[in-house]
C-alpha cells in the first residue's frame, strides 16, 4: 500500500469513527422519541429525519454549503468565534453525520420498539424516572439495534461522496476521503492508484457488513 493510499484510508476511517460517535447521541434521542412518545408534529419530524435518505447527497451537500457558508447566520456566527467548517475535515465529518443520521436513528428506533414496554412499566413501579429507565433498561435491551445502527452509519459514512465533495472538496491530505479519492484519481488519469483505494474500500465494507450481519444474527437468536 502506498503512503498516499494509507493516508487517505486512515483519514477516512478516523472521520467515519468520529462521525459515528457524534451521530449516536442525537440518533438515540430521536429514535427513542419516535419509538416511545406521541407528540404534535411527530409525522413532520419523521419526514425531516428521513429526508437525507432520499434527497440526492449532492443536494444535501449544497444545503450544508449554504448553511455553514459565510452568507448564512450559522456560518457567520461560527466564523465570529473562529470556527471554519467548509473545506476542512469538520465538513467531512458534518457530511458523514447528516447522511448517516437517518440510517442510525431508524435502526435505534427499531431496536427500542422491540423492547417490551412492560419492563419500563415495572421499572417505574420500582421508583425509576424516565431517564433512569432509558439508561438502565431501554438502552441496554436495545443495545444490539443501536450497535447495528452504529455499524450501518459507519459503513455509510465510509462511502459518503456527494455531500462531502460539495462541502469539503477533495483537498489532498486535508479532506480527501476514499470515495472522493477514487473519483479524483480517475479524473486525473491515475487509475492504478484509484484501484488500490477501491481495494481498501472493499475490505472496509466487507468488514462492516460482516460485523453488522453478525449483530443481526445474534439479535434473531433467543
Amino acid at each position, binding site marked *: 500500500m502506498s503512503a498516499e493510499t494509507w493516508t487517505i484510508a486512515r483519514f477516512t476511517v478516523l472521520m467515519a469513527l468520529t462521525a459515528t460517535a457524534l451521530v449516536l447521541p442525537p440518533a438515540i434521542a430521536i429514535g427513542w422519541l419516535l419509538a416511545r412518545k406521541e407528540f404534535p408534529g411527530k409525522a413532520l419530524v419523521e419526514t425531516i429525519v428521513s429526508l437525507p435518505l432520499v434527497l440526492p447527497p449532492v443536494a444535501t451537500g449544497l444545503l450544508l454549503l449554504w448553511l455553514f457558508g459565510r452568507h448564512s447566520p450559522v456560518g457567520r456566527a461560527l466564523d465570529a468565534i473562529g470556527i471554519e467548517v467548509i473545506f476542512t475535515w469538520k465538513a467531512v465529518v458534518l457530511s458523514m453525520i447528516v447522511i448517516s443520521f437517518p440510517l442510525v436513528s431508524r435502526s435505534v428506533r427499531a431496536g427500542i420498539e422491540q423492547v*417490551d414496554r*412492560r*419492563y419500563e*412499566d*415495572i*421499572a*417505574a*413501579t*420500582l*421508583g*425509576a*424516572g424516565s431517564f433512569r429507565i432509558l439508561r*438502565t*433498561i431501554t438502552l*441496554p*435491551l436495545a443495545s444490539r439495534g443501536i450497535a447495528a445502527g452504529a455499524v450501518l452509519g459507519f459503513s455509510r459514512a465510509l462511502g459518503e461522496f456527494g455531500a462531502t465533495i460539495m462541502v469539503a472538496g477533495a483537498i489532498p491530505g486535508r479532506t480527501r476521503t476514499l470515495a472522493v479519492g477514487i473519483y479524483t484519481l480517475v479524473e486525473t488519469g491515475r487509475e492504478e492508484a484509484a484501484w488500490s483505494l477501491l481495494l481498501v474500500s472493499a475490505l472496509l465494507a466487507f468488514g462492516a457488513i460482516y460485523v453488522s450481519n453478525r449483530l443481526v444474527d445474534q439479535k434473531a437468536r433467543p
Partner: protein
Amino acid sequence: MIDLSIDVTLRQGEFVLSVRDEASVEVLGLFGPSGSGKTSLLEVIAGIRRPDAGEIRIGDRVLYSSVNKIDLPARQRHIGYVPQDALLFPNLDVNGNIRYGARNADFDSLVAILDLQALLNRRVAMLSGGEKQRVAIARALMTRPSILLLDEPLAGVDRERRDVILPYILRIRRELHVPLIYVTHDEAELNSIADRVLRLGPQISTTA
C-alpha cells in the same frame, strides 16, 4: 392492613370494567375468570394504566382522582407489582434485579425469607418459573411498598412446586406485614391466603 378504596371505570375493548370496593384487610383476594379484568385492575392500582374515571385511595393518600385531576405517576405510588410472568430485567442478574428499586429495605433478611442466597449471581434466563417469581417479589419488596400486588404468582409454576412457593408468600404476610392484593382464578389457592375476596366478572360483587 390494606386501607384501599377503589371506585374506577375502565374501558377494555368491547366491555367496561367497573369496580367499587373498600377493603381493610391484610390480604385481599381478587378472583375472576380469564379476561375479567383482574390484571387490568392491578395495573390501574399500580399506575401503569389509566382508568377512564373514578378514584383510588390508600388511606388518606389519593393515587388517582378523575374529578380532582390527580394521577400520581407509577414511580411515586410506592406500590409493589409482581406481574404473572415476573418480568425480571434480562440485562441484570438476580442481585441487580432485586436491588433495582431499593429503598432502605433489609436486603439480607428479604433474601433469607425468600431463600434467594444461592441465586444472587445467576442470570435471570437460568431461573425456573418459581425462582423468577420469588426474585420479582423480592425486587418489589425492596422498595418498601405500601401494598404488594401479586398477579397469579403460581400460574407459571407446575403443580408440585406450588406447595413450595405458597409458604414464601405466607411468610411475607406473617413476617413483613406487607398488605397483599392476590390475584388468582383458583378458589382453593384463594381460600388458603385471602382474608376477603373481591370477585370480578360480568357483574361485580363482593363477599366478606
